């Protein structure tokens, strides 16, 4: 019983995000009138998985108490790289996938090195590297374009054996191969510990530097997965500053909706995935409810603001205000 309670208190916010998504999705399907067809499910999944990957990427630095304002730009940069290298014979495509993922890792490693060894504040360091990554993306693709191997693209964007959207399979695979082992590892535990209290983590003998560096590297890797999928969906690439910025901001919102504390130390990437799907379903819902197009951004904004304000409930219930004012430094 106690174990269940602990589990619930740890994962309550993520479960809430899941419930929110499921109810929104049900309303969407019912209201849509065409039922849950495979095509519809795939379209919803494809849109959601892109943001889910970027949101997972954002989660890990946030867990350490940092932030990565360059995830959106890494996403755009890897999109541009993917559109240049993912074509030709199969072996070249395979090498291309590795190249794209590696470039994501390198971007993340630069962020991590600046934060860990350069001792820069994550917010300002990743702000600056984001500009650099955007510049690189623009160097590769001054104008939108590029191409991707057609077989790979259709394999990635359709259904897996006609049962499940392939993107969902990829998302689950990424969770199982990247997130779960990371969360269970010493390094992953270290990230949570740093987010709770860096001093205590250091005193306990946790490899603070290695954990933090890994967090940013994994963020780059996950964003690169997103970049490949985006290339498969759009069949091209576009070095768009607003595109990257929007993804960065949405990823932060998804992380918060998914129950990860921006102060670090609590939450997880699974919640962020649900948060991303919630965000993506909002616009679909507005569409099926025939909301005037001009009203949509406003309502979307209000819902976003409301969703991130959910954390305020604890403030209204708190017996003592002091606990929200932060400790003396």
């Amino acid at each position: 019983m106690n174990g269940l309670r602990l589990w619930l208190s740890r994962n309550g916010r993520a479960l809430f995000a899941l419930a929110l998504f499921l109810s929104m999705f049900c309303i969407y399907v019912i209201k849509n009138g065409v039922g849950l067809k495979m095509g519809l499910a795939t379209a919803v999944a494809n849109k959601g998985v892109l943001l889910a990957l970027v949101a997972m990427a954002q989660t890990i630095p946030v867990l350490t108490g940092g932030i990565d304002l360059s995830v959106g730009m890494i996403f755009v940069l890897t999109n541009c790289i993917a559109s240049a290298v993912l074509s030709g014979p199969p072996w070249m495509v395979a090498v291309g996938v590795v190249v794209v993922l590696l470039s994501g890792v390198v971007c993340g490693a630069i962020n991590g090195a600046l934060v860990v060894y350069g001792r820069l504040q994550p917010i300002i360091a990743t702000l600056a590297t984001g500009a650099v990554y955007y510049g690189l993306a623009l160097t590769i693709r001054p104008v939108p374009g590029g191409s991707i191997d057609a077989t790979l693209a259709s394999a990635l964007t359709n259904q897996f054996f006609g049962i499940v959207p392939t993107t969902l399979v990829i998302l689950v695979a990424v969770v199982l191969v990247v997130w779960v082992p990371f969360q269970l590892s010493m390094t992953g535990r270290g990230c949570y510990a740093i987010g709770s209290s860096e001093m205590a983590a250091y005193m306990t003998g946790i490899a603070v530097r290695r954990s933090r560096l890994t967090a940013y590297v994994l963020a780059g890797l996950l964003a690169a997965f997103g970049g490949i999928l985006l290339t498969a969906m759009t069949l091209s690439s576009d070095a768009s500053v607003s595109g990257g910025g929007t993804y960065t901001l949405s990823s932060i919102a998804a992380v918060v909706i998914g129950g990860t504390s921006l102060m670090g130390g609590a939450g997880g990437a699974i919640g962020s995935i649900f948060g991303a799907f919630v965000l993506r379903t909002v616009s679909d819902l507005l569409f099926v409810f025939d909301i005037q197009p001009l009203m949509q951004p406003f309502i979307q904004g209000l819902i976003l603001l409301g969703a991130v304000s959910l954390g305020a409930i604890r403030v209204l219930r708190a017996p003592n205000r002091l606990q929200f004012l932060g400790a003396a430094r």
Partner: protein
Amino acid sequence: MTRGLKAVDRPVLVAFGFIVVLIILGSIYNRHPPSVLYLLQQLQVASFLGIVASGLMLTILLGQIDLSIPWVVTIGGIAATAAAGWWGGSWTALGLPFALVCGGLVGLANGLGVAFLRIPSMVFTLGMNAVVQGIVVMYTGGNAPPDRATPILQWLAVRNTFQVPNAVIVWAMVGVLVVVALHRTPFGRYVYATGNSERVTYLSGINTRAILIAAFVASGACSAFAGALLAGYAGKAYQAMGDPYLLPAIAAVVLGGTSILGGSGTYLGTVAGVILITVLESVLSVMQIPESTRQIVYGTMIVVMMLVYGRGRKPEG
């Protein structure tokens, strides 16, 4: 005492040093010594960013941040021109105050969310940015509102008084207000105290909620003011006109030596940061470097300058 002075002065000195180097580099490239006119032009362009950064700096000093700047700048520009065009008559003169009220109201909402709901400002102001964007789209999407800049805005943003651009004078006035507020009033003391430790400040009997709200209102008003001036400078207001101001403003404040964690920083530093960013952008565009390389250089410069003087303390032990 001497240590305190050193900590304050070093980033400012380094920033001004970088400015001088950049101006010299630019003039070597042009084979022409920098003229007073050129420097004044740089200051004029910098003044819009400077006014945005003035408000942002107050929130950063508190350990918060205002990410709603892009659309508050936009709503400032649109409100100032639309009020004049819709209602005409005396509203032409009231366009600017109307913009300030709009910006202040958004800031008030930000402040209430951060101070009372205790939502991290990074998230709440981000949400407000989306809401304000929605409001702008709702009111301007279907029917294009009047977007012509009024003569007053144009006079403020483009004209000169005794050779000095009016925009620079406006920025200087905003700057004097901020400096007086920060260093000559209790409010300023409370801002630095709250930034250092809100808990201790609150326990000392200070209404930290009011301080937070005041800072966000000031930030909103500053952004809207800059937006109105920008509309005057460009001749019209347009959607997303504030987008290129958020990141440079954050960079300017932080390069000027204000700690992103709050509690320390000087206005002189912010001025240095703003001029530095503006001169950097100007030199890069004068050299006709393509946008892609410009972004890379821009980002790298910020990293390098931060590595020179913006580093955190080495972990102890």
